[in-house]
């Protein structure tokens, strides 16, 4: 592995090293190091989630730009990267969206080998249920768009659904009868923390500084150009600042004087006690606003759509959990005795067209990778790759050209609501 061959850097993992260190119970080194904060960097990335760390990793590995700082006001992966429901898929509605997310899936498929870190990607298959003619029609549309882009995706009937998910109630007596589903075999789940840690370890090994527990309090702009950032640990000079935050993206953009059409909504999720493996596929119901998957440990993870009003509150609510439980039981009545372990909320930055905002802004050197709504985690690798290229070359690569901030002023919105609003 490339990581192993670099002197002075943490050794790569191998089956031999895992057995040796496991038996000796020593020799484990931290996966990334602590560094003194420098007074200046070539690139400052705000937000130590999968997007920020992936951008730093690809900047260092692909473009040789390693004098990079990743700043997080908490610990890395403490925001959306550690709060999502870890579902990966690429069966979107617009050709731009499908191409983009498919590239992300491609990177995810090779990520464990690329990072020398087990990210536990399991291709379980992904089912989006249709409970009415309208959603069935949208799924046929999505399936055809997907196929044109070379993505494995098709509409299947109730009998096939029952074969894939035996515990699903597909009887016509159900309150929301299952008419069909969009089946996306390459979709699946991954360990989201491992993705964050793997990128952090890879970026660190290539010279990137990861600084945790440091809050950005201001962005210095002079003559329309970024000069650096003010932080809780003092100023940092930098000609390039990338905003990779979720939840706080408008507040960070405000510091640079850039206004973005984003509103922050909480999205709630919950997890049950572990049970024996019985659910292979990821099951999503747009009409019931719920998605269900079973982790490798056996817990059932439930997620929902965003709350009905914007908020920065990350507290779960009782009415949410009541509604969620009811909807899950409509899909799988046999879960009635399973107990919930915990619930939480993450912050989702919603844009008017349910597509992200990526690339340059009117302030030179201030870039954004924001507005990730409910679909940011699955786009982490491709976003990092594209933003790294954008920083290195000074212009957005074609794969994200359609996601620019100017599209709202120029009427070029990319409507993804049909595939993204609850579509996990």
């Amino acid at each position: 592995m490339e990581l192993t061959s670099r002197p002075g850097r943490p050794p790569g993992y191998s089956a031999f090293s895992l057995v040796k260190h496991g038996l000796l119970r020593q020799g484990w080194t931290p996966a990334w190091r602590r560094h003194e904060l420098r007074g200046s960097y070539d690139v400052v990335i705000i937000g130590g989630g999968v997007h920020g760390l992936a951008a730093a990793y690809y900047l260092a590995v692909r473009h040789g730009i390693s004098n990079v700082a990743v700043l997080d006001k908490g610990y890395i992966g403490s925001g959306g990267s550690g709060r999502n429901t870890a579902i990966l898929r690429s069966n979107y509605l617009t050709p731009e969206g499908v191409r983009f997310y498919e590239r992300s899936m491609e990177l995810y498929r090779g990520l464990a080998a690329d990072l020398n870190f087990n990210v536990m990607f399991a291709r379980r298959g992904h089912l989006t249920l249709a409970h009415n003619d309208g959603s069935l029609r949208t799924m046929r549309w999505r399936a055809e768009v997907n196929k044109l882009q070379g993505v494995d995706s098709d509409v299947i009937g109730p009998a096939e659904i029952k074969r894939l998910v035996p515990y699903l109630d597909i009887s016509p007596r159900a309150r929301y009868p299952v008419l069909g589903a969009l089946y996306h075999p390459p979709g699946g789940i991954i360990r989201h923390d491992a993705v964050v840690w793997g990128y952090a370890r890879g970026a660190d090994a290539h010279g990137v500084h990861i600084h945790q527990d440091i809050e950005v309090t201001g962005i210095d702009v002079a003559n329309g150009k970024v000069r650096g950032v003010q932080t809780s640990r003092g100023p940092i000079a930098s000609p390039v600042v990338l905003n990779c935050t979720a939840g706080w993206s408008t507040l960070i953009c405000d510091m640079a004087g850039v206004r973005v059409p984003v509103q922050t909504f909480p999205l709630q999720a919950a997890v049950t006690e572990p049970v024996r493996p019985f659910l292979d596929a990821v099951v999503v119901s747009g009409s019931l606003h719920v998605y269900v998957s079973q982790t490798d440990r056996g817990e059932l993870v439930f997620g929902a759509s965003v709350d009905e009003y914007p908020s920065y509150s990350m507290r779960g609510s009782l009415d949410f959990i009541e509604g969620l439980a009811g909807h899950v039981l409509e899909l799988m009545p046999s879960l009635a005795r399973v107990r919930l372990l915990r619930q939480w909320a993450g912050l989702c930055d919603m844009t008017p067209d349910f597509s992200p905002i990526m690339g340059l802004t009117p302030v030179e050197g201030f870039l954004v990778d924001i507005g990730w709504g409910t679909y940011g985690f699955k786009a982490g690798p491709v976003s990092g790759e594209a933003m790294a290229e954008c920083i290195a070359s000074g212009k957005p690569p074609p794969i994200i050209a359609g996601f620019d901030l100017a599209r709202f002023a120029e009427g070029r919105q990319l409507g993804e609501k049909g595939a993204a609003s609850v579509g996990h």
Partner: protein
Amino acid sequence: MMLLPCPWCGPRNVSEFRYVSELVPRPDPAAASPGEWRDYLYLRGNQRGWVTERWYHRAGCGQYFLVDRETATDQTRPRQDAR
């Protein structure tokens, strides 16, 4: 559970209401430039802290009203000009 002070019905459960929007001043449609109009359509303050919002009491009196809300804690307080 968040309680919203409806100026007609008193404090009620948030599930009775529909969120409408942050209070954004509406430019004069005849005089506004396309840019100003798009800003009005798309841009919101999205502040963390106290904001003034319009809500609709869909499962109650069916009226629109203004209320102040703290967006980090979801505390609310009534406004004098709520109606």
